[in-house]
């Protein structure tokens, strides 16, 4: 589903990501962990077609992000770590805008908005301005907008930050449902317990380079993911 081949991205002289390769297959939840500034967000943004990269290639379902960004974006949903949404819109107006851009039919959008909003307990607030939303509500709205067009690939940057326990649980359920339907998820997190329980595969990035990747069992071996991560960071 997502193929990252030798990705390299520089910011001026600094190499944020260097020669990074990984594959996310259909049905997989792929966790991406690393210290702050390791290059996680850069990799995720490059995969979502938001950032232009300097070297390598990224394919979504075999389509090059560099050559056909729109075709790739139609299959992707991206959720940033800090959901800055359009404060000047109401929640519903924002969802309708996203549905319009993804050309979701009238019937589908009505059903999906209704069920997702109900699930994330946002129905009663969709008519209010986004400027009046709390951080958690914005995060929920961003999640609903990401799921609205039923993406094949969901790319998320720290998706659990700001969510209440119920919403976090709902998101995990939704992630599994999406993967069971043949979709794939690539997300970054600092919550290693979540990664350990939720992910089929895990990759650890350090200073822009991939230091470890594989199935969750392969990566952690006989230790906990925390120990493996700290070892990779040279802390243990």
């Amino acid at each position: 589903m997502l193929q990252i081949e030798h990705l390299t991205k520089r910011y001026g002289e600094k190499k944020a990501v260097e020669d990074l390769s990984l594959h996310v297959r259909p049905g997989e939840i792929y966790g991406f962990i690393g210290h702050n500034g390791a290059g996680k967000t850069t990799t995720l943004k490059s995969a979502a077609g938001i950032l232009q990269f300097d070297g390598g290639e990224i394919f979504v379902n075999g389509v090059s992000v560099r050559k056909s960004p729109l075709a790739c974006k139609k299959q992707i949903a991206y959720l940033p770590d800090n959901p800055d949404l359009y404060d000047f819109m109401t929640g519903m107006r924002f969802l309708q805008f996203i549905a319009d851009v993804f050309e979701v039919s009238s019937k589908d959008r009505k059903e999906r908005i209704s069920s997702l909003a109900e699930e994330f307990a946002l129905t009663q607030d969709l008519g209010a301005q986004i400027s009046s939303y709390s951080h958690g509500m914005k995060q929920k709205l961003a999640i609903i907008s990401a799921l609205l067009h039923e993406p094949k690939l969901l790319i998320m940057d720290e998706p659990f930050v700001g969510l209440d326990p119920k919403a976090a649980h709902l998101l995990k359920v939704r992630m599994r449902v999406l993967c069971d339907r043949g979709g794939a998820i690539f997300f970054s997190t600092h919550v290693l317990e979540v990664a350990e329980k939720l992910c089929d595969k895990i990759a650890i990035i350090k200073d822009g380079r991939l230091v470890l990747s594989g199935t969750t069992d392969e990566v952690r071996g006989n230790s906990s993911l925390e120990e493996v991560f700290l070892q990779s960071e040279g802390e243990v």
Partner: protein
Amino acid sequence: MIKALLKKQFSELAAFYSLSKKGKAGMILLFCLLFAVYLVLFVGLSLFLAEALPNHPSLYFAIMSLIALMLGVFLGVFSTYAGLYRAKDNELLLSLPVPPSLILFVRMIGVYVTGLLPAALVLLPAIFVFAVQSADLLSILFALLLIPFLGLVILSINCALGYLVAFVADRIRHKSFFAVLFTLGFLALYYLVYFRANEYLSLLSSHADEVEAFFRRFLFPLYAFGRGASGDLLAFLGFSACAALLSFLVWTLLSRTFLSLVTKKRGDKKRRPANDAHPPQSVPVALLRRELTRFFASPTYLLNCGLGIFILLLLSVLLFLRAGWVYSLVQSVPTLSDYAYVLSSAIPCMIAATNAICAPSISLEGNRLWILRSLPVTSKDILRAKRRLQTFLCAPPTLLCSLALCIATKVQLWESLAILLFCLLFVIFFAEASLLFGLLKPNLVWTNEAVPVKQSVGVLLSLLCGFLTVALFAASSLFTSFLGELPFLLFWCFLLAMGILLLTKLLSTKGVRAWEAL
């Protein structure tokens, strides 16, 4: 601590003008040019007044201070609200060990500068004219020293009005509508006074004593300013002390409510289920609607970049109602009647050139740029939506105003059609130019939206480009009378069409690259 906060406050502005050496020199030149134009305007006004009031220096200064005060308040009130209460770094600063009153103090310095500049722009020429006519050094010195104190009065009024706007904004839903209504009311008053200036000036010179008495009775602070500026030590000291005390009082009072106002959630606090009856729209329409929603949701954006639309509409109505009066006015000046076709095209275009809606729309994406970036829409579609917003909003009122002028001045049919075509092409040309300037001079790191809307290099360059194009059009008509009206207008239509083609090409290449590199 104050130093650090001040540095932060001004670095925002400094970062915005972080241009190349050549660019900086150009901008300084541009500002000097604009400053010079305004200085000449106010020197003219001061000369008029000084002639009308030869023996009333205190009244002369009182009137000039009233003009300075009104200009300072008008230009500063909406940015005061945004600057004091709606800065994006409010929560960050409040989380630091900085007293809220100090944050307010630093923000008030920004407001002070915004009010002081227009005041100085009015009063410096007034003092210059006074100095030429009277060599009283003490008066000149007092008048100069009083400018910063008048700035304090403007600051106090702006802060009080900013508080009122914050208070009202929290309680009403259609903020933009009321903001436009208020501004239009103010403008109507301004033009009423402006058009009757001659009448008022003659009244002033014949009733100077009564007017002075009026100031003394009802506008005593300005009367005291006038007395102080014309050499009265007691008035000088009294005005300075009162202005300082007033601004201190305003700061103390606002400090009490600052925390509660900046931490209040804006928007509709009530839970509100949505009306889900919403027909699907095509991508271009959805993008255009997004631009429209943002434009009408922000009073700052609407007022600074869209006021010309309302003026054009009002002017059109007035022109239709007073067509006969306009015709006789144009006919009364022989040379003017020869250039009715220039007036009918230049006036609407000049007003339309104040609506640089596209230019700040790039910077206004700010930290929400990721949304458009992650969606399956092309950069060209996004830029087209921005361009369409300006064209769709500005073309109808510009054409209407132009049509009203053509009818009022009785321009021939074919010439009228050419004028309408010229106006339409100008609106398209100006929208494309504004967008290009917005793309070339973006600022995505603002902390309040007044910065990209009011203090943006892109907006300034767009306005200049629009005004210069119209000025060039009007000036060229003086030297091309041999061409005839219709060929002249068609020639300019051709020039604008070429300009549009060039800008379209630039936008689809350089513009798209600039957008994608943001």
